[in-house]
């Protein structure tokens, strides 16, 4: 049977069982990774995963079933398991689930690749990271001890999503990335950086996002600061953060708590809940400078898609406007609960995972300031460009970002690098102290974790340089 016929079979059979809604997603994930460890290619990894998931809503129970047996009998068995499980677990339902009904779409889209992954030889692919690795090695050769790794990776998601509302959506989204890690150790001191850059598209992404240049700039900076770092000042001060830090802030203390399934409590046993309650729209959570969006439609982005995995058309969501909660991230279930339209935020990482609410590309909207303008009236403070360690509590209030590439600022001038300054603040303290945004914007590729079983999904983190006034800075103890 063709894929279209299998999808039709799954949906028709589910409806014969009186399902209120049925959805079929065929999902192929292909991945390849070449990794150099200290300059040597040790292994070449290739992954292929293909199967389908069927989700039904039956008497208020949401049931998901998946398989990689792509035959008529496989689909029948998969639907029957979903139905049987829904019936068996009905006694655990206290609140029947309903789903927002989106208009149907018949669409086929793909991300164009001007340098298709398959068209470049593995020798040429290897040369990309070999060249970079040599450059990194040369730059770090002044140190007595250093280790490094660098990976070139590719992933392609090919999906067919069909549902009982009549949608049939086909998509192909490739993603190319480079991840690197360096550790310098000398005279009892050590510095370490791990980062991943990339986006959707073919290998042209490496040039378009200036990935090689950015990695080498990062290495140059580590080389420059490692021996010169002084203890960080402590106490209340102005802090300017670079795009890597502003990205993780947007992701952790705005993106995650704006996931409406967390607000409902659906992630309560695992990834946690939110500082936002059911009636949060319009609530002031920060200064008027806090303007944060999530936009899956950005070309070349890490979290790119045009229709979500529930068949809902994707669009930019302005989560916070001038410090007020403007919109949450919704799927069909939370949209029905909150009585709004779904804004197309449901994604899954593979055929055997249910679609759940995910961020895509989450960022503070850029402002008007240059870096010099942001720094110029900082009397005594810090400029934290990058970080390594971070964490946040399960309601997204108590958070910490420990700076790596960080500098002391005096009278608007960068004076010297400082070691491991710690921003450890509440969301309220942080967002209320934001007073200016740079006009720059840069993104990093992240793998965001959520769900049970866990789903690590590509997203972009990044944004403009931001200035926070009079916030608490500590040091690692």
């Amino acid at each position, binding site marked *: 049977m063709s894929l279209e016929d299998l999808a039709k079979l799954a949906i028709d059979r589910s409806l014969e069982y009186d399902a209120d809604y049925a959805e079929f997603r065929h999902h192929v994930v292909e991945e390849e990774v070449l990794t150099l460890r200290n300059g040597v290619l040790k292994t070449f990894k290739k992954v292929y995963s293909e199967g389908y998931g069927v989700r039904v809503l039956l008497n208020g129970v949401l049931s998901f079933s998946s398989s*990689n047996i792509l035959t008529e009998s496989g689909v029948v068995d998969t639907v029957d398991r979903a139905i049987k499980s829904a019936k068996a677990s009905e006694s655990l339902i206290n609140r029947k689930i309903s789903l927002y009904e989106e208009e149907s779409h018949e669409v086929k889209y793909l991300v164009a690749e001007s340098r298709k992954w398959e068209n470049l030889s593995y020798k040429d692919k290897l040369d990309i990271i070999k060249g970079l690795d040599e450059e990194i090695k040369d730059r770090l050769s002044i140190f007595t001890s250093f280790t490094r790794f660098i990976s070139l990776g590719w992933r392609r998601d090919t999906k067919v999503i069909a549902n009982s509302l009549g949608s049939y959506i086909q998509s192909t989204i490739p993603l190319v990335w480079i991840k690197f890690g360096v550790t310098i150790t000398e005279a009892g001191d050590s510095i*370490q950086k791990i980062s991943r850059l990339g986006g959707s598209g073919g290998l042209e992404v490496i040039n378009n996002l200036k990935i090689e240049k950015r990695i080498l700039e990062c290495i140059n900076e580590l080389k420059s600061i490692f021996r010169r770092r002084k203890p960080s000042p402590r106490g209340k001060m102005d802090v300017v953060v670079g795009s890597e830090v502003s990205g993780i802030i947007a992701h952790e203390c705005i993106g995650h708590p704006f996931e409406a399934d967390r607000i409902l409590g659906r992630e309560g046993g695992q990834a946690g809940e939110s500082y936002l309650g059911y009636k949060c729209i319009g609530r002031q959570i920060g200064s008027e400078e806090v303007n944060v969006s999530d936009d899956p439609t950005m070309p070349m982005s890490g979290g790119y898609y045009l229709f979500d995995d529930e068949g809902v058309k994707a669009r930019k969501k302005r989560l916070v406007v001038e410090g007020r909660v403007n919109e949450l991230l919704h799927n069909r279930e939370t949209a029905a609960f909150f009585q709004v339209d779904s804004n197309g935020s449901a994604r899954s990482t593979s055929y055997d995972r249910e679609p759940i609410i995910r961020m895509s590309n989450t960022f503070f909207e850029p402002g008007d300031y240059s870096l010099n303008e942001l720094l110029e009236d900082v009397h005594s403070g810090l400029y934290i460009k990058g970080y390594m360690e971070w964490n*946040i509590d399960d309601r997204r209030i108590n958070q910490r970002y420990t700076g790596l590439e960080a500098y002391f600022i005096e009278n608007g001038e960068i004076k010297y690098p400082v070691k491991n300054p*710690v921003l*450890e603040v509440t969301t309220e303290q942080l967002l209320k102290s934001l007073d200016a945004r740079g006009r720059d914007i840069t993104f990093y590729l992240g793998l965001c974790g959520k769900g049970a079983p866990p789903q690590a999904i590509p997203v972009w983190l990044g944004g403009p340089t931001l200035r926070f006034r009079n916030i608490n800075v500590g040091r690692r103890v």
Partner: protein
Amino acid sequence: MIPSVYLDSLMESTYRYLTKIEGVDDIALVGTRVRKSIIKFYRNSLSSIDNIDTSFLKFLIGYKRRRLVTTINTINEDQIKSHIESLLMAAENIPELEDYVPLPKGYTDYIEPRGIYDAESLSIENAVETLDNLFSELLNQSSVERVAGTYELIGVKRTLKTSGGRYGEYSKSIVRLNIRCFLERGLTYQISRIGVKVKDLKLDEIPEHISEITSAMGSKGRVTPGKYNIVISPLVSANLLGYYTRFSSAYYVDIGLSPFIDKIGELVASEELTVYDDPTLDETPVAKPFDNEGTPTSRTIVIDKGRLKTYLHNIYTAKKYGVKSTGHAGYIVPEPHSVIVNPGNSSLNDLLEDIGNGLLITNVWYTRFQNYRIGDFSTLPRDLIFIIKNGDIHAYTYNIRISDNLVNMFKNIISISKDVQWVYWWDTPYISRTPYIAIKEVGITVV
């Protein structure tokens, strides 16, 4: 046992196909079928039920002195052949390894741990009834306002075939309960249990345990930043020692992401601490007779009375270090199968007395490192955190963070409980059997 018609056929056809290809010198093929049901709930109600049925192959091909690693999750034989062809084409363009290591040869009789499969424990109907009863008992307690979590029923069949003449297979069942109780005053408490059979979860003890915990909560207290003596629960021990044991992987040592570089034989923890990995244990969810390269697994002591005894190896990393594989392949990254801590002699009350004044931390998440090479990290306590005064629970507190160095922390262990528990939560690196551990002078920050 778990039926595996598709998997067996795929294993056979894939192996046969590979053996006919010129240049393929080594094959280690691992086939896995997983049948999993996950009942997810929140606010005392079902959120969804997931059923996963998947068969996939993981394999290592030694091709013209290159190590090619792949995972194929499909039952389409043509797709598998095309995947292998493109893998080999890629290999022609990448350099051969100077230090290539062939797979071990010769028949090995794998010893399957006993009592690792119980079909009855995988019934959804029984699981629903179990949860129904548990919810009722918990919600009857006035301090429990709501519950959220997952109940997982997992059946696994794993088969190995290598060109070295090795063959093995086993089936096992895993049941896993993760339940978070949302208590009065906005507090929470997490329970995580894992076993081969439902009875391993000791579900009947949970309501009483919750009752004891909530009656001990006391009033709200605040702490100031500083160094504190702390007691960590089995769940916290599993999180932190999971990362610590992972650091013993030769892979992480080689790329500089471990504080254990050049530390074999040296003290990396207090002499109170012995950590080992043992997938040969009967009736446990960690049972695994062979690794992905066909090396038989065994009990591996990683930290012996505080001293780092070994790195974890596959055959490739082992050659570099001039030792034998420890049976931890991971074709690329050697990984522990389990984290097991030798119990101490003390009760939890003894540990609280040992620290005198300090904190009892019941769960953590978001353990992140500023520098893996030296072990600087922080982690966030979540769920109940108790302030201990004169060896007794005095109050509960919130919004704190452990910020320290993991090596220094484990060197500062005071005592270890005799009570050990099998745990594996959403943020636990490996299935673990861990105790309560008392540690002195741990850095605590407060927001």
